[in-house]
């Protein structure tokens, strides 16, 4: 993928992350008091409301893509050899996929399991 496309993704995820995290903090600290928001049963009910589960999954993807792409840029500037650049790109993709996969697993387990 062209670097300009990756940077476009970086800028878009930055804006989205600010918006999504703001809504998340609003929901967890203002609309629902923080002490109530972190109760186990309350968290499970949040995951099991479809819209909020999609919201949390979006937050997960946006923040991880932005974060790992940012680390990729830093690592590219740190060393300029071609082999290093190739490895950085591969590891970044693997890290994003693995992290999103693990986070999604948590969301799915909370929706269908969770013990409550």
């Amino acid at each position, binding site marked *: 993928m*062209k*670097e300009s496309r990756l940077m476009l993704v970086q800028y878009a995820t930055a804006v989205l992350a600010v918006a999504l995290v703001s809504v998340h903090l609003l929901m967890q600290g203002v609309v629902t008091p923080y002490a109530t928001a972190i109760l186990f049963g309350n968290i499970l009910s949040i995951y099991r409301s479809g819209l909020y589960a999609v919201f949390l999954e979006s937050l997960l993807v946006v923040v991880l893509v932005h974060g790992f792409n940012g680390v990729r840029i830093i690592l590219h*500037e*740190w060393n*300029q050899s071609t082999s290093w*650049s190739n490895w950085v790109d591969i590891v970044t993709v693997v890290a994003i996929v693995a992290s999103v996969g693990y986070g999604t697993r948590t969301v799915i387990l909370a929706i269908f399991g969770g013990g409550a």
Partner: protein
Amino acid sequence: MTEVKLVIQRFNPMVDIEPRLVQYIVPKREGMTVLDALLYARDYVDHSIALRFSCRQASCGSCGMKINGRPRLACYTQVDELAGGEVVAQPMDNFAIVKDLVVDLESFFTKHRELMPFIVRSDPGELEQPAAEFLTTPKELERFLQYTYCIKCGLCTSSCPTVATDSKFPGPQALAQAYRYTVDERDEGGERRLAALDTTHGIWRCHFAGSCSFVCPKGVDPALGIQLLRRHVLTGKPPRGKGEGAQVWKPAGRPGAQAD
């Protein structure tokens, strides 16, 4: 007679292990530039001082160096404008030292050439057998005029923090020139030029520190050019206004004549 305390960084990579600062005392005169002081030291105190210079009027860009910690042209810096009464001359950062104040500009000009700093036309026949002039309008000229003032002194590149850490980054001078030619109405090589700079170590690695624009002795704003070029790459659209008034390739080169 008043004197100038001139401190020069001396280093010959063929002989020395590390650079050292050597102090010279030269007589001061009214209107004396740092280049004047350096040449006096070289001519009358120590013939082995190596420095590069030519025009003495900020046109050739040869005498770029770090003076009192800031990249400047030696011929364009008056001794009196420097605070502290001491002049410390060092080679530009981000370049390998050839000797003393002379640096190796090979990579600088290589990167400049890689971004095609010239008008590219799709029909080579136009250039080989020109039948008319390539005209532009004052309105078109305004968009890139400041970038034509670049004298390729390398001061912007020496002040760039990204060049200091990323050896493949083209640098502010090359990117600003890429902008200058990409927005030129007569140019048709934008796609090739943008493909060359839209890479992992290309235009996106600029951190917009702005030090390039701060040190430019000709008033060029490379940081602005880089940001405008980024917008062009991202949107895929020509820069604002391009093609809205230029009259290109006029028969016989007469303004106002009908285009082919």
